[in-house]
């Protein structure tokens, strides 16, 4: 069921060469720098500012509707945010043998998880309405993130920022588990016998894994940045990029963790929260989310945090406990809780796609005036500066959202069922398996119905 895409000579050559990746990264960096400049110097009108339109509509659409579902962490491989820091750390932009500035310290052991990424995402989520609609705040956040990534690279080894801090990278990693694309070794035995471990240590062909992952032990996409350095550094040609069945990583039993489980809750809860705030009909809710610093905003923030970190995990825990009792499972509550949480990953991705469809196609027509007048300075470079706003696929989007959410629910239910089978040890207990999964499936149904009610 796997297909090695690197067997195609052209693909292989493109991945082994450092130039294509560098050029795309540099272009993306140019876009981000321009977005920052536009945010600070361009019009404060979000719908007419390159920073807002290209970051929160174009980039977000490309990321959530295309890149993450189809290629997992592919964006991370060309992300411009860590690029300046990585280049300084390496002392080179292209050469695999540069001598850089610092970046030698190991990331603290206690923080080698994604709790910081979870916290960073929730923190940013509380200010999202302002960030997404205010050009200079978007610019400020982008600039701050690039500066933070650069400083992190100058102090800590490799891509510590991407692996442990980046709020976007955190959820991309979660949903990358579903992607049909994966970097894996061809034969683990070859890696085991390879004493130099150049994929981790680096050699004249490339750097050691920037994501601090040993490819020989890689089982999930979560922490693989698909930078393909390992493909370059492996002297045995033992690394490949595979097309594979979607969602395969969810059933990888090793490496299931509570921080990843909470990432699933945070993402799903945030999708519900964002949908209510940004696409819902409640003006007071929007106003509260926008009035940062006010009492109304403080209440909104508390409710949001309580929803993603308390209510949703609490309901989920209840569902797991009920299912466990129904199935008379002897597996610990913690393990059951963490295992079942991975069933929320497909539903979470579906929720984010549905949410993104809702605003991306509504606002996509803002691209045309911004292409001609990216700063709102009165230019008309391509004759589209006066193009009027017009929502696309107005009648199709609700249908697409429904289809995506129903598919997500189906996928989550199937996953929950397989998780239950794993927890009750075997296919010989179909009733126990169904009983174990049913409360979690019921919760997924409730969440899907809630989202459908908000979106459609």
């Amino acid at each position, binding site marked *: 069921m796997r297909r090695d895409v690197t067997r195609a000579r052209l693909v292989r050559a493109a991945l082994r060469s450092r*130039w294509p990746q*560098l*050029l795309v990264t*540099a*272009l993306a*960096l*140019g*876009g981000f*720098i*321009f977005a920052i*400049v*536009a945010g600070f110097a361009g*019009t*404060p*009108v979000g*719908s*007419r*500012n390159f920073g807002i339109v290209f970051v929160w509509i174009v980039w977000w659409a490309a990321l959530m509707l295309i890149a993450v579902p189809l290629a997992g962490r592919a964006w991370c491989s060309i992300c*411009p945010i860590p690029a300046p820091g990585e*280049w300084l750390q390496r002392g*080179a*932009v*292209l*050469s695999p043998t*540069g001598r850089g500035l610092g970046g030698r310290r190991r990331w603290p052991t206690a923080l080698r998880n994604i709790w910081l990424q979870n916290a960073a995402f929730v923190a940013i989520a509380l200010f999202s309405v302002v960030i997404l609609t205010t050009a200079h705040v978007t610019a400020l956040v982008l600039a701050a993130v690039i500066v933070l990534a650069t400083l992190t690279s100058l102090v800590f080894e490799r891509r510590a920022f991407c692996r442990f801090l980046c709020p976007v990278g955190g959820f991309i990693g979660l949903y990358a588990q579903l992607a049909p694309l994966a970097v894996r070794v061809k034969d683990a035995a070859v890696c085991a016998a390879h004493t130099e471990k150049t994929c981790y240590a680096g050699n004249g062909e490339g750097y050691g894994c920037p994501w601090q992952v040993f490819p020989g032990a890689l089982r999930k996409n979560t922490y693989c940045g698909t930078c393909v350095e390992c493909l370059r550094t492996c002297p045995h040609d033992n690394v490949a990029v595979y097309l594979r069945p979607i969602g395969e990583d969810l059933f990888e039993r090793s490496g299931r963790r509570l921080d990843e489980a909470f990432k699933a809750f945070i993402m799903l809860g945030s999708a519900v929260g964002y949908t209510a705030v940004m696409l819902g009909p409640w003006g007071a809710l929007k106003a509260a989310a926008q009035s940062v610093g006010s009492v109304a905003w403080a209440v909104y923030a508390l409710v949001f945090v309580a929803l993603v970190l308390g209510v949703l995990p609490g309901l989920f825990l209840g569902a797991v406990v009920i299912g466990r009792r129904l199935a008379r499972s002897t597996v610990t509550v913690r393990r059951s809780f963490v295992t079942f949480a991975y069933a929320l990953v497909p539903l979470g991705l579906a929720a984010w796609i549905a949410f993104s469809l809702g605003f991306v196609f509504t606002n996509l027509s803002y691209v045309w*005036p911004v292409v001609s*007048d*990216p*700063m*709102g*300075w*009165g*230019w008309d470079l391509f004759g589209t*500066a*006066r193009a009027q706003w017009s929502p696309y696929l107005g009648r199709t989007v609700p249908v697409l959202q429904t289809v995506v959410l129903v598919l997500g629910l189906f996928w989550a239910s199937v996953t929950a069922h397989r998780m239950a089978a794993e927890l009750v040890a075997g296919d010989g207990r179909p009733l126990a398996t169904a009983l174990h999964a049913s409360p979690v499936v019921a919760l997924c149904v409730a969440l899907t119905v809630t989202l459908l009610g908000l979106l459609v």
Partner: protein
Amino acid sequence: MRREGWARLTVGMLALALTIAALLGRWANRGGIELHARMAETGGFMPSEITATLGEPLHLRLTSDDVMHGFAIGHSDRPAIDVAPGETTRTTLTFDRPGTYTFYCTRWCGPNHWRMRGTIHVRGAGAAQPVARTVPRYVALGLDLDAPHPAAVVPARRPSAARGAELAARTPGLVPGTGLRDLSPAAMWERLRQTAPRALDDAEVWDLVAFAWKSSTTPLAIEEGRRLYAANCAACHGETGNGRGVMADTLTVSLEPRGGHGHAPAKPADFTKGATMLGASSTLLEGKILRGGMGTGMPYWGPILTDSQIAALVAYLWTFQLDAMDIPAPSTRPDLTPHRH
């Protein structure tokens, strides 16, 4: 190492090309004055003062930083320009007289919309004379615009100019043709009550008042007044003149009391309330529009509306009390039309 050098150069160019191109474009396209429009709460027009040279074109690039605004010059026939958010609209102004001109927002952009004003100082020597400034009539008459002006009498029914015209036709010379501008309708009623035949009841005398007012204006003026009212007044005073426009509540709470000067914030006047409205003269209403409310929230329209526009507006205001639309315009008009002296 050579490849690394090329790579660095390429990265630098790709990363900065867009930004450098944009900044160069900005520099090359810097002619004229960029005028930003923002809601008054966040700054209004920026810059709010512009200097122009007599007879020389003043190039403006107008853009809104938030919502839809408008741009117009007071005392000018030049049509208003919409200033859309994030878009740039270019316009060129040329002034043929020195002086200070007021530009203002023409769109109801927020509760303090009326504060969105700025000035253009036109300087330069030449044959052209500065715009003449005249003393407003209410000043010449020494009227206290802020004094209460209750009507001593109010009609029992809505006065009709049509009925008044029929009554006036029966008794020629009953309705005076001049000197009515400074009289309130209530005062005019009292005067007519004394001279009108005893057979006329009070309501019929009010009809004569309506006829006198109707005779002092034209349908065209009333129509212009209606247009001006809708554009400038209705948001606070209400479409029906009842003082409950969509901005009325916001306006009342958004104003800051001014200690020591002027007046406290007040609710917009109710033009449908006969007890106060019928006690005001056209000259008094003209003065209130011209000068504004001095802190009550009523804007001053002197630098924006011309004499004839204010007259048209006052003519329209009377339609909230007097029924006028049902008779053709008379061929002779008594002197009730306001004129500024």
